[in-house]
């Protein structure tokens, strides 16, 4: 009965050199182009996510700078109205869909198995698929810009502007199909995170010992699973209206334009939280390292994260206060929007208390994390203001709202992300980023950002509507706009400093070692950069801060990182129970595969076919995707998915 392919008791010991060598051979990606196209290593995929997201950040940034040049003074002619429409639409799409979320997926992909004490994500091939689709969908939407037909109705794309009658070009078709395409990537990525967290943690890592980092991404992933279908459906219905004459949104036939707004915001409001909660997790994780103490209030912060998201599903109508909805709805959604300040404040107080009670070490990463608290408070207060219905009626569709969203998204996404780069760059590459250039980097970004966006509140209060491509000198907005343009360019120089620092430090940065910051979590227990198998032996976790146990003295049992489970019968990792983290299965992990790439190619063909009405191409794409899927799912003996005949 004791067939080791069916069940066995894992060996418990210290890793030997020969054993580590065997693991290296089992887990390494083959060199060259073949390995590059087929790898499923979560670290490689994580880095790709980060690099690609920054490329889209730069593209969206250039679009923003063009808009700022256009608005620097009244009646300028850098961009015409049509080009301006495409610029602000692509800016929003790039930043919100192609940068802000994917960059967080990059961190999570790289870090999750390392902080959880596992060897890969739950579904390594799905992880590769999620990345390839993200790239393909991003390029798909940018292809519209290349032929001068980019989406041009803003990122929230209201009908009836977006109906074919008023927008007959292909602009909206690029957007509609591109978003459905991108939704596949987001969905499979989110499911991967959820199952990874539920099932592939180090033994002993019960729910109360999870690193604080993972709560944000977990919450955002669950939200995505529930919210993404709404926007995919909305864009699908819009595409049907535009191409096949259905009547979901067109008014003359009884279509309901407000249905678009409901479906869009039922998705997009939770999405905004999906863009910030994982970034708040980065701060909750990184800030305490530099304050030399654990985060104050782990449980309240974790619960507040989840509570923010739950409330976040009940506030979408605050984007629609000016649409003439009933008073009861105004009251309910206004109240809910204001209540959401409570869990947000919990996190702010926890971070402040951590700094207050700690002994802060002022590194670049610390500055980015700590400044985020300030920016979050400013963005939070302006959001709280527009949660009040009468104030919103005054301010909606003005630059006040633009200032708000940038304080929230740059403040709570970009600043933590850049801080996270400074924090984990040593782990990613084995080298430190330069601290001196880092300080310049921080202050340039911080000053540039506030010069650009703080005056923008006033621009909005003085009545400047968003999305206008120019204004008259009599409006009194000239000086404020000029200041904002100057700030935007300073901010851009700050971002460039980061890129320069990365390029230089990759070559000549100081060698980091495994744990340069003396940080507490598992990713710092392995070499920098980590070996392909992450952990030679699967660690056993006894507390939230496995590497700080000797000085915290919180628990009697100690975590084990050098001695643990030896798993080397093929690519293996341990599966644990969702709540207690008890080992309950030895999991067989798949190796590198071309199928994720092939499936993405098939889907790309399919979506291009739908876009240009080449139905044969759509069918061919579906066939390619289908073949890739069948090969992918075909049961394999090496993965323990089917019976193996013993000879």
């Amino acid at each position, binding site marked *: 009965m004791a067939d*080791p*392919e069916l*069940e*066995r*008791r*894992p060996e*418990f010991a210290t890793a030997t050199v020969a054993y580590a060598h065997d693991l290296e051979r089992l887990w390494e990606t083959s060199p060259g182009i073949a390995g590059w196209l087929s790898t499923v290593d979560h670290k490689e995929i994580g880095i790709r996510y980060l690099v690609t997201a920054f490329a889209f950040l730069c593209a969206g940034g250039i679009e923003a700078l063009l808009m700022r040049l256009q608005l620097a003074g009244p009646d300028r002619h850098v961009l015409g109205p049509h080009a301006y429409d495409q610029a602000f639409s692509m800016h929003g799409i790039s930043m919100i869909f192609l940068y802000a979320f994917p960059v967080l997926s990059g961190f999570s992909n790289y870090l999750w198995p390392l902080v959880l004490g596992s060897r890969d994500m*739950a*579904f390594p091939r799905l992880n590769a698929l999620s990345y390839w689709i993200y790239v393909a969908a991003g390029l798909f939407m940018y292809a519209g810009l290349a032929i001068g037909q980019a989406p041009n109705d803003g990122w929230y794309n209201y009908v009836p502007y977006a109906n074919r009658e008023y927008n007959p070009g292909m602009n909206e078709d690029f957007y509609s199909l591109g978003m459905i395409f991108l939704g596949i990537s987001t*969905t499979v990525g989110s*499911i991967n995170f*959820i*199952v990874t967290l*539920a*099932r*592939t943690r180090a*033994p002993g890592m019960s729910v109360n010992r999870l690193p604080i980092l993972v709560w944000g991404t977990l919450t955002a992933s669950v939200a995505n*699973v*529930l919210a*993404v*279908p*709404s926007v*995919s*459906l909305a864009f699908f*219905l819009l595409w*049907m209206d535009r191409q*096949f*004459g*259905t*009547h*979901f949104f067109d008014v003359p036939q*009884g*279509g*309901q334009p407000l*249905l678009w707004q*409901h*479906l869009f915001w039922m998705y997009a409001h939770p999405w905004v939280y999906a863009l910030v909660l994982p970034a708040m997790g980065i701060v909750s994780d990184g800030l305490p390292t530099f304050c030399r103490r654990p985060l104050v209030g782990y449980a309240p912060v974790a619960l507040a994260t989840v509570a923010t998201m739950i409330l976040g599903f009940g506030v979408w109508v605050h984007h629609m206060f000016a649409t003439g909805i009933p008073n009861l709805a105004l009251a309910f959604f206004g109240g809910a929007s204001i209540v959401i300040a409570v869990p947000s404040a919990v996190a702010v107080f926890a971070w402040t208390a951590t700094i207050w009670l700690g002994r802060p070490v002022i590194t670049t990463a610390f500055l980015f994390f700590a400044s985020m608290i300030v920016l979050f408070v400013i963005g939070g207060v302006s959001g709280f203001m527009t949660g009040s219905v009468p104030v919103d009626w005054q301010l909606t569709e003005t630059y006040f709202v633009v200032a708000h969203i940038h304080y929230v998204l740059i403040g709570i996404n970009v600043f933590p992300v850049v801080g996270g780069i400074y924090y984990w760059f040593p782990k990613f590459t084995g080298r430190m980023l330069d601290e001196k250039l880092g300080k310049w980097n921080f202050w340039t970004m911080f000053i540039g950002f506030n010069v650009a966006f703080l005056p923008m509140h006033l621009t909005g209060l003085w009545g400047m509507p968003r999305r206008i491509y120019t204004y008259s000198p009599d409006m009194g907005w000239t000086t404020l706009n000029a200041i904002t343009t100057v700030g935007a360019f300073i901010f851009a120089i700050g971002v460039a400093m980061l890129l320069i620092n990365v390029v230089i430090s990759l070559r000549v940065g100081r060698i980091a070692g495994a744990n340069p910051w003396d940080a507490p979590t598992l990713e710092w227990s392995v070499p920098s950069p980590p070996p392909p198998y992450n952990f030679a032996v699967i660690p*056993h976790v006894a507390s939230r801060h496995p590497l700080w146990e000797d000085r915290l003295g919180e628990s009697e049992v100690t975590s*084990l990182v050098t*001695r643990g*489970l030896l798993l080397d*019968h093929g690519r*293996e990792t341990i*599966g644990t129970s969702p709540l207690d983290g008890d*080992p*309950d*299965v*030895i*999991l*067989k992990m798949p190796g590198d595969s071309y199928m994720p790439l092939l499936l993405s190619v098939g889907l790309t063909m399919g979506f291009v076919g739908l876009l240009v009405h080449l139905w044969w191409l759509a069918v061919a794409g579906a066939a390619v995707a*289908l073949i890739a899927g*069948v090969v992918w*799912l*075909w*049961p394999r003996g090496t*993965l*323990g*998915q*089917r*019976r193996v005949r013993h000879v």
Partner: protein
Amino acid sequence: MSETARSLPVLPVGTPGRRSLGWWGMLWAIVTEGTLFAYLLFSYGYFAVQLAGNWMPRQVPPLRLALPGIVLLVISVPAMWLGSFGARRGRTVALLIGLVLALALGAAFGVLQGLDWRSEPLTLRQGEFGSVYYTLTGLHLAHLAAGLLGLLLMLIWSALGYFDARRHAPVLILAAYWYFVVVVGVTVFVALYVLPRVW
């Protein structure tokens, strides 16, 4: 040997049934696909409320083909259950019979729905109801097609003798998806064929 090591039990290896990662992935895939239908049904309800009765076609979709179709689809549930029971017990014959029956019943539903579309006077462009009707039934058919394809693959794999009492996670995963397709089918039937008659 330390305490931890001694307390470690003998662990199953690979994909043991509901402890397999695929099973967990499928549960969440069902959640997200279920949400998709929920949003579409929300849109349907939204039209019903906003247009207040002025949007139903003169003749609601007939039951002549739809009713037998949905009955066949529901009967596929015990068939699929027989298949997964066979898989869990390692009885290949029960597994094969269950899969063949589920495949035949599911395909019959698909054919009846297709015939229903052809005989239906309603069109895609005929008001909101037409648009919702075809989108909802069409999305369900797409999910059904994925299920039928899965059943076909499962039939091939079972016939090749891939599964036994210890190795059958793919069957359980497909069964979960199939039950989901049936639940959505019944919901769509109630929404489009029953509710318009009750109102």
